């Protein structure tokens, strides 16, 4: 019997010929990422329990992104502890405000060549599942786990069953990967892929850019999945080889691999959707929410703050004004993207429309800073979660949408496609 790409990657990393879903293996880790919110305990574990030495400084990437530029004294202390740790451990791969080149960890990592097909990647952040977009096995872990990976370079994994999601045809104009992934989350439910890998394939996926593929795998966790993955193709290889001289060995699912479940979609059937509060699975057509007036439109995050997300929003906002009184926040995932949108004139389009640029990073995606909502306020956001209180006050509301829907909503003042 054949194996899926996920099973093959875990088997190779665990030094085994084969693995089967449900089996628990200890696998070697290729890349471990650490940010400001979750590293504190991991650092303590290395220092207090494992003699203060990491397993391999070249495989640890330090990316403070959630509360930076330091939003308060406590975050300043967390970031300082992380950077001091990195210096003491001689970790070279640091992307922070201090290096002048920083942003949301999940956008930095692939764009700096640290994500390669066939790797095992872990990060103390749930959206680490995004990195399967380049054919890696990648998953979010906790702080204790991160500390143990820092010290030992390995971690236990329960080999996941895989759900295969095949998307045939071609996405209609105005329909983006965000609409597709929200539709799938709506169909599967928030625990429909619990403990599983979500493997995307089909002509519509082949046609997607790398930025758009990242949106799909980024949100695997929103249906409970352990990871999302897309088999590497020429587009993947070109993207990775342009960014790293490191060697890698891609793996692919066997034709007779076994899947727990298979879903098939026809891309032409898809339409712009939003996820209503308070669940990413609460998905309805965007046009059914025209009665929802918004106070804020937030275009940003690892899910929706990539260059192509801004390009899509800018095409809608070109020559237009946002609805009076609402906030239009432009939050580039990274400083590199920020530079690019300024250079290419997108920045002017957003500012002419009445938008405001927020510094790169996670900001209000998690209600941390940089665009937090008041009680009773409603936002349309290109981010990935809309739980109660996610972007601010517990009595605020978030509708998740594509950058096109977000931009159209900013102009109208109410949700529209």
């Amino acid at each position: 019997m054949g194996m899926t790409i996920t099973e093959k990657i875990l088997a190779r990393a665990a030094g085994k010929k084969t693995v089967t879903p449900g089996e628990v293996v200890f696998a070697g880790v290729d890349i471990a990422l650490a940010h400001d919110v979750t590293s504190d305990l991991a650092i303590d574990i290395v220092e207090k329990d494992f003699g203060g030495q990491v397993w391999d400084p070249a495989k640890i990437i330090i990316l403070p992104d959630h509360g930076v530029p330091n939003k308060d004294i406590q975050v300043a202390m967390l970031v300082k502890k992380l950077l001091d740790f990195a210096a003491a451990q001689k970790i070279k791969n640091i992307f922070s405000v201090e290096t002048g080149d920083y942003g949301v960890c999940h956008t930095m990592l692939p764009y700096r060549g640290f994500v390669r097909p066939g790797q095992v990647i872990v990060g103390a952040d749930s959206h680490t599942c995004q990195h399967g977009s380049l054919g890696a096995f990648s998953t979010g872990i906790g702080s204790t786990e991160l500390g143990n990976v820092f010290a030992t370079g390995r971690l236990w994994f329960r080999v996941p069953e895989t759900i295969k999601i095949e998307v045939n045809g071609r996405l209609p104009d105005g329909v983006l990967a965000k609409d597709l992934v929200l539709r799938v989350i709506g169909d599967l439910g928030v625990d429909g892929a619990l403990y599983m890998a979500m493997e995307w394939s089909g002509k519509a996926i082949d046609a997607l850019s790398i930025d758009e593929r990242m949106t799909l795998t980024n949100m695997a966790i929103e249906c409970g999945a352990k990871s999302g993955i897309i088999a590497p193709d020429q587009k993947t290889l070109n993207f990775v080889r342009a960014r790293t001289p490191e060697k890698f060995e891609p793996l692919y699912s066997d034709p007779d691999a076994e899947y727990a479940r298979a879903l098939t979609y026809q891309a032409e059937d898809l339409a712009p959707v939003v996820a209503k509060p308070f669940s990413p699975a609460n998905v309805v057509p965007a046009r059914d929410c025209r009665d929802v007036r918004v106070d804020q439109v937030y275009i940003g995050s690892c899910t929706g703050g990539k260059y192509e997300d801004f390009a899509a929003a800018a095409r809608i906002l070109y020559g237009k004004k946002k609805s009076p009184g609402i906030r239009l926040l432009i939050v580039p995932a990274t400083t590199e993207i920020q530079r690019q949108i300024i250079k290419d004139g997108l920045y002017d389009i957003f500012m002419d429309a009445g938008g405001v640029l927020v510094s790169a990073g996670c900001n209000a995606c998690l209600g941390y800073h940089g665009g937090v909502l008041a009680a009773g306020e409603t936002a349309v956001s290109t981010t990935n979660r809309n739980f109660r209180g996610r972007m601010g006050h517990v009595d605020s509301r978030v509708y998740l949408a594509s950058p096109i829907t977000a931009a159209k909503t900013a102009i109208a003042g109410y949700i529209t496609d």
Partner: protein
Amino acid sequence: MAGVIKGRAFVVGDNIDTDQIIPARYLTTMEPSTLARNAMRDLEPKYGAFLDAQNKCPYQIIVARDNFGCGSSREHAPIALAAAGIRAVIANSFARIYYRNSINGGRSIYPLETAADLSPVKTGDELEIDLDKLTVKISGGQTFALKDFGPVKEIIDCGGLTAYNKKHG
């Protein structure tokens, strides 16, 4: 791992996410007692108050339905609950990172899965969990079975992943 956990139950429903368990605005520290004072701060009001007026938790066991702990990877969630005095969460299923954090963190806040219908349990019920027999008894009522931990029991028995890795080099 051995023994019996007795305590009062706090009952919630499906999909209790980590933003409800410990909202992001409190994630500027991993210090347990600070997190405990804000545990379940943004929980849906229909479940009642998890903390009393002094920000103390009068419960020892959480009873949930499906997908408890979904959302972020924040280990602050089991840290907050454990420091608030919760010894076990009984649920029909757990979100995987929460489940892993509970086991690997070694904090004696056990994630206990069951296939049983949990609707007979009401907030305030006294429960008795037998971790050896894998049973839960509702005081004056029925007993139901818990699923076993499978291969990760060894990590729990060691007292968490750090202790496990130190023992196994």
